[in-house]
């Protein structure tokens, strides 16, 4: 421990008070909030609800490739909460709490209490991270697994107790099964673990066997098997994989790195007002830089175009950034490439974060919602800043610690208010207006649900078909079990029509990409409801009418 700062000082006390307050707030929010994230409503949790009906293999209700292809070790954790109807985000919050519990003792042992509490506060000051802690996505699970592996390794070396190896191996298994993008980091940690055991033959063999066992038990092997059966590839349809991956090699990686770096230069919250010149200028400068380097559209998802590049730092979970501390993390990580200090812990953390950022840029196609993929790297960059500030006691470092604390406290306290559906008002809405909060990220599905309830009330015998595409938002419709909606693909619905399975009085909800084409095929359909929401998808509801009686003969 740093002898100059062994006890809790004023910085530590302030950081502790703010951290405890915010952990309480986010914990309460995770306990009461519904599943808010669009991705969860499309597939992360929607597929758990569908698997409850018909299992995993050959599930008749899986209507999106995303229901099948992603590993589901973390998604499956949500099953009890789906059945309860509460606490959807608790697993994510536990990942945040577990990450804090893992890093706190490590930093406290090396740099003292002030640094440890400031590190916890710094993590809570990253908006993207805390929004993920109240979402049901699996990105935070990767950070948590990495933190537990690091913690177990630290204790293994410190206590010379091989039992901690078990936890290192389990953390690798959890990371492997939580998300596709966790496979390579998990493999890297597995190799690292084995490398450390290279001179301990019997233990090496047992650890290798343990790694194989955890990958089989917790690595979500079954989703890879089903994906291979359905698409001929364990990771999904090859065309989709090309779309989701950077397919432009080094130039794509360079373009993505520039976008990620520019995205995390904090110039204020994005509220889409007319006065947001700073965000517009930053976005325009980034577009010009990409154009000058002849990297326009390189490495990006084909649906994304640099002509519309806009560097959001909004309060929407999928478009959130890392706030002012994200910029600090970036400023710490970037010099690590040229400022070689292998003996310095801060440098090692910064370089790992930077390499992670390069890895993500190289492997994943850029989209506007890609910031959450960078979660572990910005967490490492932020922790690196704390280690740098507490690395030694100099007057300028003491002043900078106060500056860092103020920035961290401000960002952490502001994060709930920056979000449009995670602030104190949303906490109240979780009780008094729960359904509106549930569909706050995609309100059109709330309107569809209300309309379906009304129509279903008029004719309870009519069945409800949801004719979907890959990105249909299903969960709010599925969890209203009184509606008993039947998801079906466009081709599947055509088969049902051909077989005469669709009867008079049945309802069908069509997502707009299929609605017009199907409307031409079905002539006995009326369209009582049409919804639209800005320029996004719209959903149409049709009630099937009985065939017209034959004309009486004159």
């Amino acid at each position, binding site marked *: 421990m740093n002898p100059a700062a062994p006890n809790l000082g004023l910085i530590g006390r302030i950081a502790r008070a703010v951290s405890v307050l915010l952990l309480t707030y986010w914990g309460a929010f995770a306990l009461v909030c519904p599943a808010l994230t669009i991705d969860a409503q499309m597939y992360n949790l929607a597929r758990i609800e569908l698997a409850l*009906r018909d299992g995993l293999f050959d599930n008749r209700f899986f209507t999106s490739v995303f229901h099948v292809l992603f590993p589901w070790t973390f998604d499956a*954790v*949500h099953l009890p909460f789906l059945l309860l109807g509460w606490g959807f985000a608790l697993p994510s919050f*536990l990942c945040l709490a*577990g990450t804090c*519990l893992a890093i706190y*003792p490590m930093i*406290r042992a090396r740099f003292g209490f002030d640094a440890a509490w400031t590190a916890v506060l710094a993590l809570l000051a990253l908006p993207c991270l805390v929004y993920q802690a109240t979402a049901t996505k699996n990105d935070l699970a990767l950070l948590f697994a990495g933190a537990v592996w690091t*913690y177990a390794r630290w204790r293994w070396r410190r206590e010379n107790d091989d039992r901690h190896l078990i936890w290192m191996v389990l953390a690798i298994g959890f990371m492997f099964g939580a998300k596709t993008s966790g496979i390579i980091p998990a493999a890297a940690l597995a190799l690292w673990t084995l490398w450390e055991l290279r001179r301990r033959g019997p233990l090496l063999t047992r650890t290798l066997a343990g790694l194989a066992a955890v990958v089989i*038990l917790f690595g979500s092997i079954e989703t890879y098997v089903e994906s291979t059966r359905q698409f001929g590839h364990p990771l999904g349809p090859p065309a989709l994989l090309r779309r989701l991956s950077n397919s432009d090699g080094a130039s794509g990686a360079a373009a993505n790195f520039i976008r990620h770096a520019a995205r995390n230069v904090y110039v204020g919250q994005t509220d889409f007002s007319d006065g947001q010149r700073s965000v517009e200028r930053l976005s325009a400068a980034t577009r010009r830089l990409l154009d000058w380097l002849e990297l326009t559209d390189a490495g990006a998802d084909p649906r994304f175009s640099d002509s519309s590049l806009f560097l959001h730092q909004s309060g929407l979970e999928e478009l959130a950034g890392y706030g002012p501390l994200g910029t600090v993390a970036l400023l710490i990580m970037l010099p690590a490439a040229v400022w070689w200090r292998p003996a310095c812990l801060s440098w090692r953390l910064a370089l790992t974060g930077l390499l992670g950022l390069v890895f993500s840029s190289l492997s994943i196609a850029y989209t506007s919602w890609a910031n959450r993929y960078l979660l572990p790297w910005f967490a490492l960059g932020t922790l690196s800043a704390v280690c740098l500030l507490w690395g030694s006691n100099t007057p300028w470092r003491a002043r900078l610690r106060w500056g860092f604390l103020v920035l961290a406290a401000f960002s952490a306290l502001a994060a709930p208010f920056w979000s449009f559906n995670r602030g104190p008002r949303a906490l109240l809405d979780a009780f008094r207006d729960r359904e509106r909060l549930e569909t706050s990220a995609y309100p059109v599905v709330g309107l569809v649900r209300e309309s379906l309830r009304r129509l279903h009330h008029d004719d309870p015998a009519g069945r409800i078909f949801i004719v979907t595409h890959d990105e249909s938002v299903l969960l709010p419709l599925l969890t209203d079990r009184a509606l008993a909606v039947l998801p079906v693909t466009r081709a599947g619905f055509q088969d049902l029509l051909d077989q005469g399975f669709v009867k008079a009085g049945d309802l069908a909800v069509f997502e707009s990409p299929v609605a017009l084409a199907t409307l031409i095929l079905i002539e006995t359909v009326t369209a009582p409801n049409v919804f639209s929401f800005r320029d996004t998808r719209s959903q149409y509801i049709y009630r099937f009418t009985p065939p017209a009686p034959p004309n009486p003969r004159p």
Partner: protein
Amino acid sequence: MSRRIHDLLAAARRPVNLPYVLLAGLMLVSFLSRMVLLLR
């Protein structure tokens, strides 16, 4: 009494197993849930 408080404080400063407990809990719930879903 003061010794007891001292022991408690010392215990609070030792590394804790809570991160392990959380990981084990999440992995157990995940495994059981996956089995339930696979057997549907």
